């Protein structure tokens, strides 16, 4: 391409220069001028440039897409970045701190001391806005508890009473004209009127954030003599009809569950509270209580001892609460230093004085020896810095949590991915810390010291839950019995955790491709052999374009036909469909042998259209026969109910193994016969003995078929006796939208492309090889099998690979017919979820730049890589084929 502007062009003299001038001496013979016309050269040069630019643009476009996909997915693997660090000291020392809170936008924070002092301050500047005092009464506070979002608090007192408090940030959006005048600027675009903080937000609006804390009257929940030592608190229901559950441990280690139900009369505004106290079974030994935690549904209560023993109450049946389990979460001599639930209260995080930091799940399994069959199981550990972790603040959004360790280092980690999101050495002594809070959006963390010093870090972690491991390796999600590959991007609850393993999707793509190739490859290649080797050229001229037209059928049409028509039909006639896999080939082969019985002159006369029609007829007959025999076959093989058989309810393993072994045994028998009984086949010689020979071959074939059946049956029973069973592996539970249906539909979609390329490859085999083979006395079939197919093998292989690339990337058929269940299961009667289908289905729901959004882009990148590798292999093989073909 580059050389196209030929040397002649550059040496071309200007058009107006006299030709003779170049010739030199006067005596010289006039040199002949032959040159290309200027317009031709110009057109040539323009074409060269346009083609070059076009080609480069195509490459740039493909690379651009690749770069775009990579840049969209890279943030998934990034860890956090600090965006701000603030340190200030509150005017009044915090002393014994009861609570610390931060609003969603990191504008307002509050600190509550044990003496009731409440300081509300601007989070970024530390400027005090309001300072008040809650009247906590005369008895000292001995315990506090709050819901995970820190909006509902409960304080326990030495006199055995409890006071509930409601702490809320209120956010209103204001337009500029509603903005009060005379605001004091706070920096960072914030301003205050001394009470609320006003922040400018995009769209020329202002956000007003205020804080309000209301304390309710004391409720007596236990003996007045016994101080409440520890508490756990969950609340549910709406404001006017709330149910609060409180678990208390008093000084005598007595554990009680207190339910208070409040009802506000809408007419009178009167509020009635009923208190229901349930005494729980006593603890087995006196303990030094470290903490009490109640799950959000209040069905499990955990009481932790400082020594690392955890006592678990099962509160599912409130009439009969049981102490279900006493577990140790710490090695001997280590002491518990932190203990809390993560969001969703299904994962328990514990930390010990030995520096251990571990996550426990409450699991239910058959092999647990506890009263209720559940047990606390250590799911994963974190590498702490060697020093004990003392403070612990869970996130409101995901499984992240913040900790402070012995050196005063503040870390934020994700509980599932174990990714370290932030790591801030505060340089402050551990003993001084009183409270730690993680910003609701997991973008800031604030710690308070006893002397009023506050450290507040802001950071940015776009995707805390994804690492390479969560995307491609086994992950143990909470509530699951064991680590696994799980894809579940959304759920009905707020505290769910998105499970984004790409492995089931990659598996699904390959499963769909595998089964559709299993269906498509034999048909497409045999079809290609048939049209290229056996059919009259004129018929081929009709068949090939027809097959190519099949490729133009939109896959969405194939998908919905598969899902709405084929799937119910296959479900109804599943036994007949299975029988057809055996019946159709048998019928065709029987037909071929019967054809041999025809006298040669008849066979010669009928070999065109009538033969083709007879083949079709035998296929139709076989289809009819399998349909008619279907129920009988189901009765014989599967106890009359295939789906019950699949579930393992009825029947034995042998019948299905027999079906599976049939093709293998047929192959084995034919190889054995060729090896050892070749003499049985007479050398075909003359014309007159055609009939006896055909009869002999038919008999031999019948013998072989019988032998195959016997061998398969024998092997199947042997394997079944040895305990082999296809159920649970290759076959299993039947669902209507299953891989068999996908195999049919997608097979139909890829047959044309495999057929076309394979047919071209077979046709490219030089005619002289066919002539040589036929001249040797080989039949057409022998020629095709021994000469044409091996010569075109790499072309046929690349056809299969290109078909496979298409099957892996195919979308609409798998969206509609595959059931979209992201499971790792080879069962052909179960569904699957492919990468492409996932992208198509979930991208509309994914928030732009969210984790799911980027993971879907990653899925696209993986899909791109897969089809790229498959197509490249196909192309390399084809290049080799082309080089070899030139030798012929």
């Amino acid at each position, binding site marked *: 391409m580059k050389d196209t502007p030929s040397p002649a062009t550059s040496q071309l003299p200007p058009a107006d220069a006299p030709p003779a001038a170049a010739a030199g001496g006067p005596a010289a013979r006039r040199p002949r001028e032959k040159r290309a016309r200027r317009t031709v050269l110009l057109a040539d040069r323009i074409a060269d440039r346009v083609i070059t630019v076009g080609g480069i643009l195509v490459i740039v476009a493909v690379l651009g897409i690749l770069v775009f996909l990579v840049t969209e997915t890279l943030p998934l693997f990034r860890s956090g970045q600090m965006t701000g660090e603030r340190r200030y000291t509150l005017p009044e020392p915090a002393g014994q701190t009861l609570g610390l809170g931060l609003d969603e936008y990191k504008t307002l924070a509050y600190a509550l001391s044990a003496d009731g002092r409440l300081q509300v301050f601007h989070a970024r500047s530390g400027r005090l806005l309001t300072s008040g005092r809650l009247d906590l009464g005369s008895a000292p506070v001995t315990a506090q508890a709050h819901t995970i979002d820190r909006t509902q608090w409960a304080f326990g007192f030495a006199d055995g009473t409890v006071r509930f408090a409601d702490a809320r940030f209120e956010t209103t959006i204001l337009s500029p004209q509603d903005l009060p005048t005379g605001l004091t600027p706070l920096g960072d675009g914030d301003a205050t009127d001394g009470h609320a903080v006003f922040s400018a937000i995009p769209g020329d609006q202002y956000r007003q954030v205020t804080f309000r804390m209301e304390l309710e009257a004391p409720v007596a929940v236990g003996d007045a003599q016994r101080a409440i030592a520890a508490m756990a608190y969950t609340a549910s229901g709406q404001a006017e009809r709330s149910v609060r559950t409180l678990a208390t441990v008093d000084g005598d280690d007595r554990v009680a569950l207190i339910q208070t139900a409040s009802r506000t009369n809408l007419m009178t505004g009167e509020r009635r509270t009923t208190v229901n106290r349930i005494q729980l079974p006593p603890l087995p030994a006196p303990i030094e209580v470290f903490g009490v935690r109640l799950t959000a549904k209040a069905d499990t209560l955990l009481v932790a001892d400082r020594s690392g023993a955890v006592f678990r109450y099962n509160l599912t049946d409130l009439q009969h609460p049981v102490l279900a389990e006493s577990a140790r979460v710490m090695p001997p001599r280590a002491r518990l230093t932190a203990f809390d639930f993560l969001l969703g209260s299904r994962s328990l995080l514990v930390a010990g004085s030995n520096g251990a930091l571990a996550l426990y799940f409450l699991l239910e399994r058959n092999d647990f020896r506890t009263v209720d069959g559940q047990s606390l199981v250590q799911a994963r550990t974190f590498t702490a810095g060697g020093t004990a972790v003392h403070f612990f603040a869970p996130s409101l959004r995901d499984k992240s949590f913040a900790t402070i360790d012995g050196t005063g280092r503040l870390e934020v980690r994700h509980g599932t991915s174990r990714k370290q999101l932030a790591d801030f050495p505060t340089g402050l002594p551990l003993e001084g810390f009183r409270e730690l809070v993680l910003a609701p959006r997991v973008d800031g963390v604030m710690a308070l010291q006893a002397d009023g010093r506050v450290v507040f870090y802001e950071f940015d972690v776009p995707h805390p839950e994804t690492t390479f491991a969560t995307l491609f390796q086994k992950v143990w999600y909470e509530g699951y019995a064991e680590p696994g590959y799980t894809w579940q991007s959304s759920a009905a609850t707020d505290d769910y955790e998105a499970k984004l393993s790409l492995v089931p999707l990659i598996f699904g793509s390959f499963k769909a491709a595998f089964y559709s190739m299993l269906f498509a490859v034999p048909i497409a290649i045999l079809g290609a052999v048939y049209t290229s080797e056996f059919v009259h050229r004129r018929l081929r001229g009709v068949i090939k374009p027809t097959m190519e037209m099949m490729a133009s059928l939109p896959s969405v049409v194939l998908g919905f036909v598969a899902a709405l028509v084929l799937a119910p039909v296959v479900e109804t006639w599943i036994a007949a469909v299975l029988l057809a896999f055996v019946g159709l080939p048998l019928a065709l082969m029987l037909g071929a042998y019967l054809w041999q019985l025809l006298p040669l002159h008849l066979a010669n006369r009928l070999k065109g259209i009538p033969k083709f029609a007879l083949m079709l007829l035998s296929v139709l007959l076989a289809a009819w026969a399998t349909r008619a025999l279907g129920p009988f076959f189901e009765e014989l093989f599967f106890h009359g109910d295939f789906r019950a058989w699949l579930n393992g309810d009825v029947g034995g393993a042998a019948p299905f193994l027999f079906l599976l072994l049939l093709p293998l045994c047929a192959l084995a028998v034919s190889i054995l016969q060729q090896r050892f009984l070749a003499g049985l086949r007479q050398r075909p010689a003359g014309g007159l003995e055609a009939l006896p020979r055909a009869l002999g071959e038919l008999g031999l074939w019948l013998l072989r078929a019988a032998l195959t059946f016997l061998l398969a049956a024998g092997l199947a029973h042997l394997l079944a006796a040895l305990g082999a069973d296809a159920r649970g592996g290759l076959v299993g539970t039947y669902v209507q939208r299953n891989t068999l249906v996908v195999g049919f539909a997608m097979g139909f979609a890829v047959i044309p492309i495999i057929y076309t390329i394979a047919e071209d490859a077979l046709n490219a085999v030089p005619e002289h090889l066919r002539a040589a083979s036929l001249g040797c*006395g080989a039949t057409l079939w022998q020629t095709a099998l021994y000469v044409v197919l*091996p010569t075109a093998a790499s072309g046929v292989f690349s056809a299969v690979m290109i078909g496979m690339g298409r099957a892996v990337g195919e979308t609409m058929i798998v969206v509609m017919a595959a059931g979209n269940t992201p499971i790792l299961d080879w069962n052909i009667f179960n569904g699957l979820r492919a990468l492409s289908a996932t992208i198509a289905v979930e991208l509309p729901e994914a928030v732009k730049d969210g984790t799911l959004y980027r993971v879907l882009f990653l899925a696209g990148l993986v899909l791109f890589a897969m089809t790229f590798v498959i197509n490249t292999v196909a192309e390399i093989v084809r290049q080799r084929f082309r080089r070899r073909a030139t030798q012929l």
Partner: protein
Amino acid sequence: MPDTPQVSPDPPDTVYHPMTGAEGSIIEIERFNLWYGDKQALFDNSIDIQMGLVTALIGPSGCGKSTLLRSLNRMNDLIDGLRLGGAIRLDGADIYHRDIDVIGLRKRMGMVFQKPNPFPMSIADNVTYPIKVDGVRDRRVLQETVERALKAAALWEEVKDRLRDSALGLSGGQQQRLCIARAIAADPDVLLMDEPCSALDPLATAKIEDLIDELRGRYTIVIVTHNMQQAARVSDNTAFMYLGRIVEYGKTKTVFTTPRSRRTEDYVTGRFG
């Protein structure tokens, strides 16, 4: 198969003076006519091919000699719109009879083509191909066949150490001798050669000609050639064809020295062709 068309009433004006073999004729071509669609390619061809002799078909390009050769083992069958008249008999049986088994017929007639066309397999596999398609799997028989056929084709000494190598690695002349070995591996009665030396250099040509000489007597050989010296050197009988007709069929020496037909004389003396 089309019905036998009416043979043209003109008696063929062919001049006959062939050499007769000791065992008589093996192939009898009798008033054989052939049409490609509407175009007639062969007119009333009638010759007897003598068993064990080498028969050469010569004539200018397009005269129908290859067509006639390919009619002998029905390699023309696949061509569209082919119609035939007259008869070709192998050992007295009409090879175009409706009861004839074409595959069996071809097994009796080995064929060597213009361009060497070994299969893209090993040398040994090329040679054993014709007997493998017959169902022979006995390794001993296969080995014996390889050796016998390659020795008969005078290739054994050159390739005996690399029988497992690809046949495509051989030189053109070697490839053509391999094709001859393949053609005789199944022990046919007749060996058909369609300009076997046209793609070879003179040295390779000489070797093939020597080989044909050696095979004389063991096989009946029909060879098409456009090289008259070659025909003169290797054949016993020569048929000169012109425009689809056999002009003269007779002893090679006579055809080349004292042809009895004017046209033959013109051709062999190089006045046209």
